[in-house]
């Protein structure tokens, strides 16, 4: 199976949040039932953040101008990194890559340690107290393996979300960026080609990465280094054990005379002598 990717074209997105709802519907993620459980977000962005029950939101950011604003939209969900920090951090192997590159959390195996939560540079996985497991977008693998597009993509009315072979998505994104640049969006960029070994969510950032809140050149060095601790720690422990073994070997025939104190003289007096 070839690598696949979702392509999000921020220039075509109308921020209708259809993807947000389709995600919740397909994955049967609940929303609160009473008015009191909702808070005013002071923004069109609602809910404000991802959660165990919200795996995708559209982020809204406003940049004021003399006439109108620049309203920058961004699809906030899992990027399905090739070099996935969450997968590396997971101590129990609950996070895995599918053949097509999608990264998912196996709830059966998840122990709720939240190492993935801490490790993801994008802050995507979210821990759920009730089930003590962590959730995130899994690129609707139940759909994609049945030759259907992820729920978010299939609901997108404007074609801002596409799904297909990663190579095709990248090519389309590059073409779109070229078009946008020609149309005056000089900061337009493709995101996801090489980041973290290549993402499986490709983004066309109409007004540049920063405007859309994307992390330029995300790093997971600490997670890598942390993982390096395992062999290093093993080697260090083995070294110490080796050194002490050597010590034990060297002292294998150790013995010493039993010496006690002569209270009167303050000298040590040999009581027994060990055989040499």
């Amino acid at each position, binding site marked *: 199976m070839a690598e696949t990717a979702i392509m999000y074209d921020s220039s075509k997105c109308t*921020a*209708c949040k259809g993807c947000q709802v389709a995600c919740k519907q397909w994955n049967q993620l609940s*929303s609160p039932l009473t008015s009191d459980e909702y808070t005013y977000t002071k*923004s069109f962005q609602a809910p404000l953040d991802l959660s165990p029950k919200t795996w995708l939101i559209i982020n809204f950011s*406003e940049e*004021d101008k003399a006439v109108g604003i620049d309203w920058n939209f961004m699809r906030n969900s899992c990027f399905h990194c090739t070099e996935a920090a969450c997968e590396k951090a997971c101590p129990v192997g609950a996070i895995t890559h599918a053949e097509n590159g999608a990264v998912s959390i196996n709830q059966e195996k998840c122990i709720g340690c939240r190492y993935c939560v801490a490790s993801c540079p994008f802050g995507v996985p979210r821990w759920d107290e009730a089930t003590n497991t962590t959730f995130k977008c899994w690129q609707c693998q139940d759909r994609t393996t049945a030759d259907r597009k992820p729920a978010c993509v299939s609901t997108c009315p*404007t074609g801002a979300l596409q799904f297909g072979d990663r190579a095709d998505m990248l090519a389309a994104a590059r073409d779109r960026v070229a078009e946008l640049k020609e149309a005056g969006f000089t900061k337009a960029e493709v995101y996801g080609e090489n980041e973290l070994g290549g993402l499986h969510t490709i983004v066309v950032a109409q007004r540049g990465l920063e405007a859309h809140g994307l992390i330029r050149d995300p790093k997971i060095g600490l997670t890598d280094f942390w993982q390096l601790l395992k062999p290093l720690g093993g080697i260090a422990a083995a070294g110490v054990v080796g050194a002490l073994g050597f010590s034990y070997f060297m002292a294998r025939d150790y013995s010493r005379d039993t010496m006690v104190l002569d209270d009167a003289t303050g000298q040590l007096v040999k009581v027994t002598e060990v055989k040499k």
Partner: protein
Amino acid sequence: MTNHWTDLQNSDVVMINGSNAAENHPISMKWVQAAKEKGAKLMVIDPRFSRSAALADLYVPIRSGTDMAFYGGLYNYIFENELWHDDYVKAHTNASFIVKDTYSFDDGLFSGYNAEKKSYDATQWGYVVAEEVPWDTSPTGAYSWVTKPGTPAFTPLVNKKAKKDPTLQDPMCVFQLMKTHYSRYTPEMVSKVTGIDQDLLLEAYKMYAATGEPGKAGVVMYAMGQTQHSYGSQNCRAMSVMQLLLGNIGIAGGGVDALRGESNVQGSTDMGLLFGNLPGYLNAPTKAHPTLASYIEKETQYAGWWTNRPKYLISMLKEWYGAYATLENNYAYDMMPKNDGTPHSHIHMFEAMEQGKIEGLMLWGQNPAVGGPNCSQERRAMANLKWMVAVDLWETETAIFWKAPGADTAAIDTEVFMLPAACHYEKQGEVANSGRWIQWRYKAVEPPGEAKDDAEIISEIYLKLKEMYEAEGGANPEQLTKLNWDYLDDAGHIDITKIALGINGYVIDPATGGPKGGVGLASFANLQADGTTACGVWIYTGYFTGNYIDPDDPEKKKTIASMDPTKMKAGSRNNADEPLIEGTKPLGLYLGWSWAWPLNRRIIYNRCSCDAKGNPYNEDKVLVKWDGTKWLRNDVPDFGFQAVAADGTVTPTPPEKTLSFMMTNETVAKLFGSGMKEGPFPEHYEPFESPLDNQLSSQQNNPAVTVVESAAKTLGTPDKFPIVMTTFRLTEHWQTGGLTRNLPWLVETMPKMFVEISKDLAEEKGIVSGDNVVIENNRGAITAYAMVTGRIKPLTAGGQTVHQIAAPWHWGYGSTCSVGGMANDLTPNIGDANTHIPEYKTFLVDIRKQEV
């Protein structure tokens, strides 16, 4: 829409004015984006920066309610810079018609105004008649049907052909009158009225007027931002005039595209849901039409296609009353109520309710307690009802109007019945979209519990009423008891396919009184005024007949005797986009996908895509084309392109004999017309509540509007209420929220009622985002969360700073999931002069931070 959704991709410039297409018609943006990919420009004109504006190449903030000034300025710009599509204007409009010298315009008023009646004598705006041609009713004449047996007797009409000056030089020709009229709309003046910066205004004009170049296409997408004003109809007319000047009607990528605010609202108006309409846009009879003959004589046009109006009325009556409708009883015309000549719009209905003139109210998927203008007054009016029946999916605010905030529940005696309805996945039937496509929608699941299909509910009520009238009698029982109701299946339940066939129309089998051969008619051209055909909605004729077949295919005459919707045109799902004319490019017409009224035309007025000789203005976007001997066609022609004799001989109609706009008496489009209540040219007036005096004339408001009593009492003035407010909808919610505020998934995406406030106004009032604010005027006060944003900014208009605020109207008190202030508690119940659509979109308020 004159065009349709997929056609938006063919535009060169898309103007979205008074619409938030991206949010309220999400799919539209798919096609706008497709156009943009080909290099099209998108312009969005709106007081507030919406998600549509977020995608625009040019955003033009405008003072709410000043669209007409914007268009007037655009006409003037077009005239000044000679950018009109000259060939189009001469060939397809009434620009050359000479107007009678009784026409005049002075300081905001046209000639013929009666201040007391607040109405005009439109005859003062007529044309100079060059020739009068009586209808030829002889057996070989065009109007021979008039004398056919069975046709009711009436006086045949006389075609009055206007005097014309093809050079457009005559000072009394429409073109010259128009130029003069709009010369007052200078960029300085328009900027002053609209608050649009003059440079930005000219940039917008330049961008859009560029579509006047032959071969270029500009489309205007509009919705309630244009229509919900006391001059909303004139705004629509203004857009049409703009499109005509630029040659943008009847072409691919052009058009005046009304984005209908609800799924199937197009279908509901097609069905004649408005008080002044019968199905198929026939006017409802009034006291001016006491007899069938008088209706025919007054309502039938003397030229063009509407000369056939009697055929549609009589066929409709035959469908309604079946065998009971005979020539002898005027085809049951007398069964139809005659309007007393006063308006009975939504506003007037609630006014009458408040005055205790209405006893009962049946609500079908309507929630006026939240959606009506000045809706707190409507809630109070409902307390005068004896009974109410609310048919809906949820318990709406209207169904519980008696426990609304502030209602004196104990004093309300209204008995309310709640009937659970099936939702659209739980019933089948046809749905008409904005592009006039009629698509069959199938039932996916059974309705839950006691919920029923609306048609079944109506049928049950009807059958019970009939039974009661037959048993007990009553006033005019025949109106009900004689209705043709052969829409039931063997079990006595409603069979929607039988209704569909009745809507479609058929030749009446004299033996059974039912459809001859069990099939529908393929074209309304076959409908008759002699009682031999029946048809519920003439413009739908053909939709419920056999599947789409290539019109040039000899098989096309094959009719399929079936009631299976999948085999009908409305159920047709062929999504091939292949042009029929060899060598032309595909235009997304999709003739094989569903069926568009009339006659599957995808772009109406498509004769205008060609010049007088039948050569397309744009060879890359060919709809129809005269090849020298016949018409080649990619779309279904909107003109008589050929005549078929009884023996089957086909005679193509040469270009010079075809009609550009066959629905008008003029048979061309009207830049100047006598059909509107406020005058032949659209003119700028201020909203009834405006912070400014009219800068263009001393006539402040639409002179043809009458204000109902409850509205007059609560009008506000800018000294007390200095802030302009407008309302809008969000993509996350739908209308009054009856559906969406009960669905947690949707509530979560926009949980609370809010009001958008500019940073300047917020600073002035000491408001920050998240504060609770009170918005009030004479009609009410609501609270909402403040959303302080750069998306809305104050404008300078008429030499002063105008603050505008905007709030959605989705919230109410009737949900467990999401409740909030009702914006329509503040909107005025003042309607447009022609349609009485309320002035929801511009009114005055004051705003303050809520004291804790």
